[in-house]
């Protein structure tokens, strides 16, 4: 009987410790499975930043990202991008005209320069 109680106490301890570490690991993965893409859009000829261009990331899984617009120096930032096994595509629009689309493999925070124009 006493042995049974000891076994039960041991089992309960194992369950509690397992749940604690499982919870901690879930919390850790949730806090790290998002990435940030910082970019600059520059003109192919002048190599200067282009303001006012619309930026989207598109994904087979998550659809179309929030709209971002390049600032006066052509910079933009998209935060909270879910890290996925599937590829993303970065699209750049001048008004409604698509001027650039590139496949991106986002596995971590990244910074890139995108060159557009002729």
């Amino acid at each position, binding site marked *: 009987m006493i042995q049974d109680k000891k076994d039960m106490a041991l089992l309960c301890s194992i369950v509690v410790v397992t749940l604690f570490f499982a919870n901690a690991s879930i919390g850790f993965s949730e806090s790290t499975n998002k990435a940030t893409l910082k970019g600059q859009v520059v003109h192919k000829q002048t190599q200067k930043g282009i303001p006012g261009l619309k930026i989207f990331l598109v994904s087979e899984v998550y659809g179309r990202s*929030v709209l971002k617009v390049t600032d006066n120096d052509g910079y933009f930032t998209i935060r909270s991008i879910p890290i996925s096994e599937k590829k993303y595509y970065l699209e750049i629009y001048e008004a409604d005209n*698509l001027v*650039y689309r590139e496949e991106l493999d986002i596995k971590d925070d990244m910074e890139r320069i995108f060159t557009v124009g002729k």
Partner: protein
Amino acid sequence: MEGSFNITVVISAVCGLAMVIGGILLLWRGAMSLDVASKSEAISLEWKRELRLTTQYPALGFFIIGLAFIFIPLVFSKPTPIPKAKIEGTVPGVNKPLTLILETEPWISGKEHEDSIEEEIDLSTVRLRITLSAPLHRQVERWVSLGELAEGTYDLGKVRLQRVVPALSKDDTDIVELPADIKVPPTNKAGGFGE
């Protein structure tokens, strides 16, 4: 404060329901009737000797007070709609679509706290940055406080955007094709992810 208000609203609604259901039960058991009662049995409600309601139909009075307990909290618990503001202005000489971007200025409290936080924020002083953007043009910023926006209409006036990139020709080699099996929403359905 809001929590105690919500509790009061729920208690009031529960009391109202109890009165209505109780009234039905009393009618069913014959303890009350829908007949006219004598003046001595009439229900009378008086508020500060200014308002006095008397009914010789106690059962109906029971229902009406019960219904009032149910519906008055519904009226008071209705959320106040957030007021809308209008931004106006003219931007001559730009033959490209304009985009308006609103961002709040970070609000940093000067107070230091220990283990509990109590802050009073004067929302009318919180400022918004309005950015006017058009492709290939230098953006223009204006700052406006929420207090100014709350007045209804904020007039940007006449804004001139300077063109900084003469033209942007598309290079078709810059555009990779999307795989045929990928269906993505159109640009007006953005916002699926990211911040």
